[in-house]
């Protein structure tokens, strides 16, 4: 089949140093992957095309890049699956949220710094056992999904929070952190959860599910972050806007069956947070003038007591 690839090129050593797109037309087998196409270009058309790749089997995690705007591994993306129907070329760009070194190669320095920041190693309390550590099978099965991470950076590439905030630990590091908080051999949960509760940690995820969608290994980073939020709150860290927001939401649905939008921001920021309360005033005035202020007297839904009963039943499980 005839394939057109439009590749974002950038060479810091060239004379113009301006990133640009270059189109290549190739003849490829129906079973070919995007990586096959890129290697064919490098070997037969333009030896200066730079990319990382190694195993060609979705194991090493080297070839994460943006394919038609969304991160994925070039080696396990078949060309035929991503060819636009209208005949336009497949767009290939370097992974996002990391600086480009050359063409499709990005600098993973910040990625590794964040992975290291969550101390991704076992920190057991007791003395080292004489033989191996024994962990219950069910605990390890639970972790099977998250230990499948191959550190390819696809989730980081497309994380919508990292796009606006380089301080955010990001999906890969947080999923890694989850893996250690749930490892029965690790004994530093209190320390880990307290760090994860800080700015840049679990509460800064915006729940956009981009990481879930682009992860080539089913690690499901966002769900791990949500489970970490639950653990952080259970561990007594309830004094953040995020925890207050979750608790206020929970109480609102429990008592009225639906959301009290007026009280939610007030409770999330904390009523005694004078600066935040003053900050809400301009929006409050604009909403009032536009007739968009939620009702002051929040009425319960019909049969709210049945909802409350369900809360009680499930909470006691």
């Amino acid at each position, binding site marked *: 089949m005839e394939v057109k690839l439009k590749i974002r090129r950038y060479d810091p050593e060239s004379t113009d140093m301006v990133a640009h797109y270059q189109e290549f037309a190739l003849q490829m087998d129906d079973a070919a992957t995007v990586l096959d196409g890129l290697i064919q270009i490098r070997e037969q058309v333009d030896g200066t095309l730079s990319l990382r790749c190694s195993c060609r089997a979705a194991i090493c995690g080297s070839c994460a890049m943006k394919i038609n705007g969304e991160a994925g591994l070039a080696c396990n993306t078949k060309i035929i699956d991503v060819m636009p129907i209208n005949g336009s070329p497949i767009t290939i760009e370097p992974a996002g949220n990391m600086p480009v070194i050359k063409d499709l190669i990005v600098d993973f320095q910040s990625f590794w710094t964040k992975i290291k920041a969550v101390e991704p190693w076992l920190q057991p309390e007791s003395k080292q056992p004489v033989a191996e550590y024994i962990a219950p099978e069910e605990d390890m099965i639970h972790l099977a999904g998250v230990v499948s991470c191959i550190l390819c950076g696809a989730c980081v590439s497309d994380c919508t929070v990292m796009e606006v905030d380089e301080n955010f630990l990001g999906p890969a590091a947080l999923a890694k952190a989850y893996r250690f908080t749930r490892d029965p051999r690790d004994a530093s949960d209190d320390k880990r959860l307290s760090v994860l509760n800080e700015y840049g940690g679990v509460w800064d995820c915006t729940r*956009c599910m981009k990481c879930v969608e682009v992860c080539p290994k089913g690690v499901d980073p966002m769900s791990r972050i*949500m489970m970490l939020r639950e653990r952080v709150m259970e561990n007594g860290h309830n004094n953040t806007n995020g925890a207050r927001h979750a608790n206020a939401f929970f109480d609102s649905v429990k008592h009225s069956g639906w959301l009290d939008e007026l009280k939610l921001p007030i409770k*999330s920021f904390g009523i005694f947070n004078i600066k935040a309360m003053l900050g809400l005033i*301009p929006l409050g005035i*604009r909403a009032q003038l536009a007739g*968009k202020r939620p009702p002051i007297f929040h009425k319960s839904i019909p049969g709210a007591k*049945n909802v409350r*009963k369900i809360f009680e*039943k499930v909470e006691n*499980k």
Partner: protein
Amino acid sequence: MKYAFYPGCVSRGACPELYTATIEVCSILGIELDEKSLEGASCTGAGVLQEKNQRLGDTLNARTFAMAEASGLPLMTICSTCQGVMAQANERLLSDSDYLESINEDLLEEGLQYKGTIEPKHLLWVIAEDLGIEFLKSKIVRKLPGWKLAPFYGCYIVRPSKALGLDVNPDRKQALEQVIEAVGAEVVDFPGKTLCCGFPLLTINPKNSINMVANHTLDAKDRGADAMVTPCPLCHLNLDGYQPKASSVSNREIDLPIIHLPQLIGLALGIEPQKMRLNKHIVSTKKLLSELAVSP
């Protein structure tokens, strides 16, 4: 066509214009809304309740599905977040019969049982799939004056794609563009259309949230958009309500009206703008609507 209508919290709270526009539009399109069957249905949990207790969220959604099943009607929502959260809950409930059975035990006291036959459907999909774009086109009576509109799906109506059936119904990825074109406007495509509006971070990290608003609205505007259209009331709340702040943070005038999906359709169906509360937005729609030759 008749649906058990699930309006969600926001269209009954901070976005009354969405509710009103939906009622008006559905009446013209012949979509009959049964508001009684689900009047006792709770909030979906919006993903926030699930942070504390996912099983609880799944139980509440199973309860809503059971109510819809009892009515014998398909379930329609007008909120992308409700759509996404319900679809995710449904996927968990339907993929594990033991789980569904144990959830049903907690519904028994109220006489409800979820059999697993509900597929929650957003108004956008009801229009694109159940009614059909051609039918929508046949109802159009007012031509929109060359508007350039940027679609904004947000997250919960496109991800996770499997739970939302995007693999089985790939047209859902283009449904908003199809509607925009059907009503005679031009689509302004931009990469941010399926990214996060920032709403979930609003109370947690307002700076990041507002930067997201600025990035998306400015990108759409720079590409020539006259307004943005969204099927999600939460995206609307952030992109509309926090646009003045985003404008001051980015030091640029934005002034991009954020239109709810049914408001756009309603204009093409000839409904008066004020009937759909288009005059009740934070970012004024006055300039945009002046081209329609009717004042908002």
